[in-house]
């Protein structure tokens, strides 16, 4: 479904991704783990064309999207819940969700709204509240809900667990699994919380300094001694 081959990305003169190869198949949950600054978020943003890949190729559903402008890439059926959530602070929850539905089918807006309210009832209760006044957990839910409003075939999630209470993290991961199983939506999840992510994912990739260093099934990576030492220390339990 999504195939990334030999992608290099620069921020100014600094090379952030040094030739990344990665493959995601339809209906999978794939996770990308790695330390802070490894380039995980950069890879997600490169898929979206902002920043654009300097070289290499990104193919989504048979179409080369490497050189498309961001808004056209997102119209191919990709949705992104980015790093830092990026909720529109001076828009209400409902308006944020309407923004998420831009690339979706307008006839299915009510249905999709009902669906995300079903997943995150708190958003319905707070519908008229402005995004900037929500708590971190609520903003994260809103960011995911907003990404779901367009019914994407591929959902990109950047650290949905960052800074959230363990209970909410569980809730969010449950929702991701439910959506994947019920609607077959493909999920590409970037996480620092490697334990949760690898348990959820079918397959995983490990990124170190802008390169993929390891790949395997979620279970294999969980049991890999090197992964355990580097990313799971003290997290198991």
């Amino acid at each position, binding site marked *: 479904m999504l195939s990334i081959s030999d992608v290099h990305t620069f921020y100014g003169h600094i090379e952030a991704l040094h030739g990344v190869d990665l493959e995601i198949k339809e209906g999978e949950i794939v996770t990308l783990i790695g330390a802070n600054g490894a380039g995980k978020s950069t890879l997600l943003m490169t898929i979206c064309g902002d920043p654009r890949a300097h070289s290499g190729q990104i193919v989504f559903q048979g179409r080369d999207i490497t050189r498309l402008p961001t808004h056209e890439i997102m119209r191919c059926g990709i949705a992104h819940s980015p790093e830092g959530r*990026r909720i529109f602070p*001076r828009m209400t929850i409902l308006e944020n969700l309407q923004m998420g539905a831009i*690339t979706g089918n307008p006839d299915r807006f009510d249905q999709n709204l009902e669906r995300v309210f079903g997943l995150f009832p708190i958003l319905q209760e707070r519908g008229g509240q402005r995004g900037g006044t929500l708590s971190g957990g609520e903003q994260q839910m809103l960011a995911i809900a907003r990404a779901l409003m367009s019914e994407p075939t591929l959902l990109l999630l950047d650290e949905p667990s960052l800074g959230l209470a363990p209970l909410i993290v569980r809730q969010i991961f449950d929702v991701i699994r439910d959506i994947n199983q019920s609607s077959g939506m493909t999920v590409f999840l970037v996480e620092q919380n490697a334990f949760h992510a690898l348990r959820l994912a079918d397959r995983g990739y490990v990124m170190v300094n802008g390169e993929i260093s390891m790949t395997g099934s979620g279970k294999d990576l969980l049991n890999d001694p090197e992964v355990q030492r580097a990313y799971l220390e003290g997290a198991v339990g």
Partner: protein
Amino acid sequence: MEYFLQQLINGLTLGAIYGLIAIGYTMVYGIIGMINFAHGEIYMIGAFISLISIMLLESLAGGSVIVALFVVLIVAMILTSLYGWALERIAYRPLRSSPRLAALISAIGMSIALGNYIQLTQGARNKTLQPIVQGNLELMKRDDGFTVVLSYMQIGIIVTTIVLMAAFSLMIAKTSLGRAQRACEQDRTMASLLGVNVDRTISLTFVMGAALAAVAGFLVVLYYGVIDFYIGFLAGIKAFTAAVLGGIGSIPGAMLGGLLIGLIEAFWSGYFSIEYKDVAAFAILVLVLIFRPTGLLGRPEVEKV
């Protein structure tokens, strides 16, 4: 009391026109964070296009005046919008990721270029128009003969402005284009991640600002009947002042600021001296900036994210 009422009417009329121009400043600032210093010239071009269209239609003669004026208004809005659109494409889009100073200089350059372009093509002399909309209502008469007058033209200006501003506010608040504009204003990257064509949204913002400035130009031509290539400068600075006074980036602020500047000017000219009306308007700006740097309806820069 009668004198006060008359100045109020004059002030409201003037303020409505400033408000229409100020919206263009505040919207562009909101979406790309720069002051479009060529906006006053866009207004001036709107006035010239209106004048030329009126003269063309007059020479053709016939038909109802109201319909003819409506046609002129639409023509002026469309053509002036094209100028606004081209201005953004030529002078600002290539500099979007450059330092702000570069865009600022480009804006001032465009302002001078557009002013000179009209001076060269239309001549430097005043252009006049015979009054078209005449007649007025006498509201009150004082014993000494002073009469409070509300002209049909003033009614036209105030009503047009109210209708346009209401329609415009509704558009920003309720339509998907308005939402996309607010989204670009708050987080351009995120807007594009949701499928918003940011370049197109910014272009449309310039187009809308220019269309409103064209309405102001049209109204001024009919109201004063005299324009020249230089009117864009002072009106532009006044409308910019109005936008800052109301809180730059805030659309209700631009409307309020426009009204206040108009009223200050009218009352100052009515009660003190007409020579110093500009000084009064700008003095108020200085005071507001000292005591309330974000303007009356502006919000502080820091946001909880």
